[in-house]
């Protein structure tokens, strides 16, 4: 084990370094994705909405309904072409939607939040002028639908011969029959496509439409066309949903959060390194090496797992850096004590590690326990915090016990290192072993 350990440390370090800096594809992922550090919405900008599925008297929210609702919302969001949306179920009746980098909030919220109760409503001749897109049906008009959205089997974007965007849809048997009867009798009249009691579009019937295949054409923009297709296709949710939370952070704000945290973190780390070096001297330098190693391993894990970094995650990273340093501080303080108690350098280092180990272990396990509780019971923000904390604790224990220890063991075997000033103790407190071998270091030891 003693022999393998240094190689293991180097191997882990190199692997981590490769993961942390090289543009490697994520293993086992299909389609292949590059490994990258994921930033949370608060650090890159975007919106997050949380929705509650509302049970009715005779229909509770089952797991199946929740899953269906989630996938419909996901399809709706995906259809807009926005990048990397995350739609997740939360608990038993919630769905959260996270979309990075969105600016046009209204449109997205409408798309997600609308129940998607889609109706095809005949428009009587007297109301033909008063029906407007984007408004509710005019007061007094009979809103009884001809049929509703579940009759639609296919909806897709299309383009006319002239290249204008159109929407093409196909109805199921029953709807097709109803639609044919209606269009045959009402050429020149309008019908309204109504989503959640708001008119989405009210085309004029040009000819009778048999067979349930129809096109809606007009002055659509491509975006409007896609939205209408989405509405037709993913229209109805099984139950109503209600927006219970919403937040949006602009990309510039996220960017400035990120920059500020990075700058502040860098300054903080530099100061910590300075402190360690001045106070603990040689072991402090070892701790800094360990800290760099720790940083690389953490970065690699962030990219590998992947961990989504948020402001809370950054806080956990700072805390875990504190813990990584703490492990080293514990060991070095103990080593100093053992030196002062008259032990030789190498046995003081060994004793420092062995004695400090119990408190490092007990303290870190208690952090792991709280971390696990937070991860299991916490909200998404707290989960992110807990994950970084857990990783930090484990990695810091590993580095303190392997890397710091191996380096320090090696260092104290070097003759040049055996000077009181390197360990921050007084000359008279410093005992050097009559080392088991090598005559040269014996001379240094003779000082005592």
């Amino acid at each position, binding site marked *: 084990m003693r022999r393998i350990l240094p190689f293991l440390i180097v191997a882990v370090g190199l692997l981590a370094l490769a993961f942390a800096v090289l543009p490697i594809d994520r293993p086992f992922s299909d389609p292949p994705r590059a490994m990258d550090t994921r930033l949370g919405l608060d650090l890159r900008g975007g919106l997050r909405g949380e929705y509650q599925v509302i049970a009715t008297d005779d229909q509770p929210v089952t797991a199946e309904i929740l899953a269906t609702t989630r996938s419909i919302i996901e399809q709706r969001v995906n259809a807009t072409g926005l990048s990397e949306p995350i739609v997740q179920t939360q608990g038993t009746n919630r769905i959260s939607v996270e979309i990075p980098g969105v600016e046009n909030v209204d449109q997205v919220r409408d798309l997600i939040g609308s129940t998607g109760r889609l109706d095809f409503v005949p428009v009587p001749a007297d109301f033909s002028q008063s029906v407007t897109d984007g408004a509710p049906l005019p007061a007094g008009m009979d*809103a009884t639908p001809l049929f509703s959205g579940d009759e639609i089997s296919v909806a897709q974007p299309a383009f006319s011969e002239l290249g204008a965007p159109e929407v093409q849809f*196909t109805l199921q048997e029953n709807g097709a029959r109803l639609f044919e009867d209606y269009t045959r009798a009402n050429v020149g009249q309008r019908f309204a496509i109504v989503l959640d009691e708001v008119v989405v579009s009210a085309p004029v019937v040009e000819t009778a439409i048999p067979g349930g295949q129809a096109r809606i054409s007009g002055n659509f923009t491509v975006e409007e066309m896609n939205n209408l297709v989405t509405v037709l296709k993913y229209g109805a949710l099984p139950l109503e949903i209600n927006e219970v939370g919403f937040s949006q952070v602009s990309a510039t704000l996220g960017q400035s959060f990120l920059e500020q945290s990075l700058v502040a973190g860098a300054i903080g780390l530099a100061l910590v390194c300075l402190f360690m070096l001045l106070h603990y001297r040689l072991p402090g330098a070892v701790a800094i090496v360990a800290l760099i190693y720790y940083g690389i391993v953490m970065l690699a894990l962030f990219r590998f797992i992947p961990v989504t970094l948020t402001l809370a995650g950054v806080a956990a990273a700072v805390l875990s850096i504190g813990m990584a340093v703490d492990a080293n501080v514990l060991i070095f303080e103990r080593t100093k004590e053992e030196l002062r108690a008259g032990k030789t350098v190498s046995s003081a280092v060994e004793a420092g590690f062995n004695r400090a180990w119990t408190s490092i272990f007990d303290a870190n396990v208690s952090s792991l326990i709280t971390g696990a509780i937070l991860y299991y019971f916490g909200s998404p923000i707290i989960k992110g915090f807990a994950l970084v904390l857990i990783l930090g604790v484990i990695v810091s224990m590993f580095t303190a016990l392997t890397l710091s220890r191996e380096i320090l063991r090696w260092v104290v075997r070097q003759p040049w290192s055996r000077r009181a000033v390197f360990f921050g103790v007084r000359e008279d407190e410093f005992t050097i072993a009559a080392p088991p071998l090598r005559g040269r270091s014996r001379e240094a030891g003779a000082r005592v």
Partner: protein
Amino acid sequence: MFDIIGRRRWFYIFSLLVTVPGLIAILLTFLPGARLGLQFSVDYTGGTIWEVHFAQGTPATADVRDVLVEQGLPDSSVAISTAGERQYVLIRTEEIGLQEQAPPTPPPSASPSGSPVPSGSPDPSASPAASASPSPSASPGASASPEPSPSPGSIVPTEGELGALASALQERFGPIDEVRQESSVGPVISQEVITGAILLIVLGSLGILLWMTFRFGDFRMGAVAIAALIHDVIVVLGIFAILGTLFGLQIDALFVTAMLTVIGFSVHDTIVVFDRVRENRIRHAGEPFAAIVNHSLLQTLGRSVNTSLVVLITLASLLLFGGDAIRSFIFALLIGIVSGTYSSIFNASALLVDWHEWSERRRQQAFVQSRAGG
């Protein structure tokens, strides 16, 4: 050798000097009517935060507040925030962002189709379209009405109460060209955040208590660590309540995270001291417990101070350079870690000694009584 344990009364008194006013300030929160004590952000109370930039210069806060009052939102606060060269208007109101998009006219009265969507039926979009063989050329067209539909391409909300507020503000102060952040929290979420925070703190403490009792084989050590932890929670909450009353310092969503971090740190410190007590009890068996604890404290003092110093250095740089969003969070951490270090050195161990001596006395009394009785 400095006698910490012997002076423990003084350290208790110092703790009380901070915790008692803090507790009073915390209790003020429950005073109805007055807005004293802890100031909670919208994450806990529910509400809407909206931070925007006006293209034609930043209006005065009083003018913005006038508009808010006109919109029926008298209970709002307006502040100006600065980022670099740009100034933003930060509006906090009751929760308006989540309102249903209320149409200007009442919805059609006749809605006989109010029946809920068929529940059990399979979702049409999920089923692959068997009948679909779209032959576009064959399908007759139905041409849409030519009205241009109002496409909301703007970044500013146009619907609901927030939309109404947005248009009122833009009418008065010119167009809004950037929405820096918008956040709306409904009562469901805010309630959950509060219960969740309490649950986590309680469960976390319980876990720590069990672990320490198991590792140290002494329930008292776990219980005392928890007492120190409660001390730290009260200190942080108390200082936030005092500063909240005086300067409106708010408790936001990240505060819970800060609290949990503080708890973790406090317990870390306490465990390190107790670990040394455990070791010294074996080495110096026979010495009075107070002396053993005092000795252990002095031995671990360097480590406790240095570790806290390291964390405080990083926190201080985050506080100075880390930006507004995390400032109150970092501040909570700073107080908490100072308090955590203090309580593990001066309170937890001292309480342990008191408890120990108390049970010793009881044992002796019982012994004397049993002697006298027998």
